[in-house]
């Protein structure tokens, strides 16, 4: 097994706040790794350190065989980053953005233009190629952003909350593209707040909680800890009166419904039952025994995860 990303004992603090504490990670080459956590858990800080944007206060990290502290240019020549805010030039057209990035990645003029056309086709941006990015929709911007990251192939591709703020259709389109990239053999490291996203894309998932990895495993392994669908008892106005996790079996579901039935009998009239998939909150509750998103922390660090 080849390791594409390895972090040992990474720590980082901002203005006295421990954002990351003794973080350990190992990501197998060619796999998709999902870092799951609420806002303020340290997801973006982790990406920043692995992509050489930030220096860790302690610990070492190796990405695509290069040390992030000793050989940042070695890392940079083997990775690509798609950050949280679409890093596109709004004044330029989509085509100009791609040509610029290709030139900056060492391609000659002609090769850069050819590569730009290829990517415009592949990301369904050919029609909008000559339009300024300022006029692009959110989904188009993200597609261009991702295309810019793929101007030259990378061994490790970092995606920081790639689908946050996108509608369902754009999100699914992007998932499809990410899957394609992964199938082409690159290692993909993505952060997300959505369990479903990590579940759909990632071979392995790590749950980040207050700057530490709280759990790590495959999606089925984590789900086994969380349980299956959650049964909710809703009052007449839609408020949640009670909820019970299930283990995904018919028996478990029946037991949960029976239990809620007893609660319903003693509470409001007109109570309804709803079933939903486990959310990030449920994962957190299961793993850390407390809800996700400690709000004060997000406030202290700023908005970035």
């Amino acid at each position, binding site marked *: 097994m080849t*390791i594409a990303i390895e972090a040992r004992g990474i720590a980082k603090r901002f203005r006295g706040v421990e954002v990351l504490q003794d973080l350990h990670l190992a990501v197998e080459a060619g796999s998709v790794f999902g870092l799951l956590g609420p806002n303020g858990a340290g997801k973006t800080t982790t990406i920043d350190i692995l992509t050489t944007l930030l220096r860790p206060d302690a610990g070492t990290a190796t990405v695509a*065989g290069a040390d992030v502290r000793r050989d940042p240019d070695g890392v940079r020549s083997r990775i690509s980053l798609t950050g949280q805010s679409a*890093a596109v030039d709004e004044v330029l057209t989509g085509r100009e953005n791609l040509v610029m990035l290709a030139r*900056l990645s060492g391609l000659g003029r002609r090769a850069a233009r050819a590569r730009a056309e290829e990517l415009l086709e592949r990301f369904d941006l050919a029609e909008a190629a000559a339009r300024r990015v300022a006029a692009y929709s959110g989904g188009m911007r993200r597609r261009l952003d991702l295309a810019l990251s793929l101007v030259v192939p990378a061994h490790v591709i970092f995606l920081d909350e790639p689908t946050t703020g996108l509608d369902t259709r754009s999100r699914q389109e992007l998932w499809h593209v990410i899957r394609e990239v992964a199938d082409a053999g690159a290692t993909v490291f993505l952060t997300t707040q959505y369990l479903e996203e990590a579940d759909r894309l990632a071979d392995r998932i790590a749950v980040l909680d207050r700057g530490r990895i709280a759990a790590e495993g495959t999606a089925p392994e984590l789900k086994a800890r969380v349980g299956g669908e959650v049964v909710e008892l809703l009052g007449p106005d839609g408020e949640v009166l009670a909820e019970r996790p299930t283990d995904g079996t018919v028996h478990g579901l029946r037991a949960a419904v029976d239990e809620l039935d007893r609660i319903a009998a003693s509470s409001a009239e007109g109570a309804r039952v709803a079933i939903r998939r486990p959310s990030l909150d449920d994962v957190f509750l299961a793993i850390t025994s407390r809800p996700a998103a400690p709000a004060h922390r997000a406030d202290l660090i700023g908005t970035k995860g």
Partner: protein
Amino acid sequence: MSTLIDAVTGPTAPAPAPPALRMRPRGLTAEAVFIGRSVTHSLRDTEALLMAVLLPTLLMLLFTFVFGGALDPSGGYVDYVVPSIILLCAGFGASSTALYVARDMTTGIIDRFRTMPLRASAVLTGHVVASVLRNLFATGVVIAVALLVGFRPTATPAEWLAAVALIALYILAITSLFAAIGLAASSPDAANAYGFILLFLPYLSSAFVPVDTLPGWLAWFAEHQPITPIIEAIRSLLTGTPMGDAAWWAVGWCVLFIVIAAVWGTWLFRRRAGRR
């Protein structure tokens, strides 16, 4: 921790690095690409470009035809004021650099460049060079209009060359300061606001009236502030007024500005880049 971690913390040797796929751009390619980008930005920011040319032109017409008669009834005010308008013009034109830099630093595009094997600071070089080109063009327009409304320079070709060189140096100096202001500002709007002070400086100099007509304390400031020798030097080169030691002061101030902007800017770029 997981079994995966245990597996790698064992005796496994670190894998050799796979080949680099993203090449460092050769020579000054990165700078050239960023200059091209910033020039395109300038050309597409039509309002800013129009302002950079129109505002100084209108100011010049205003000073020549409205105030000029009162300030110098002999009609020679146009010769006095054109060098000042040129500097004012450069200030206006350069101020958008602060905005462009602040925008790059806050939109996340800088992170993309910083995760590539290139000098990310070349982004700033692009903005600064584009500003110098933009403002030299605006200066040309201002001089052309000035000639139409009666500006009669006495400069020899060598003096013209020296004047243009000094103007370019001044544009470079003030653009560098604005670039640093753009780095220091927390947002593009803030960048715009901070730049105002620099734009105000020419009014408190010998730009529009001789320094000795000002009240004592202001005259002292106007005499010793950097804009005065720069204006005096350009005025002397173009219209043959006495030079004195203005040229040395002018070049000295410009170089000092560039050094300050470079040191401050480098520090800000590293700091901002590290913190975001």
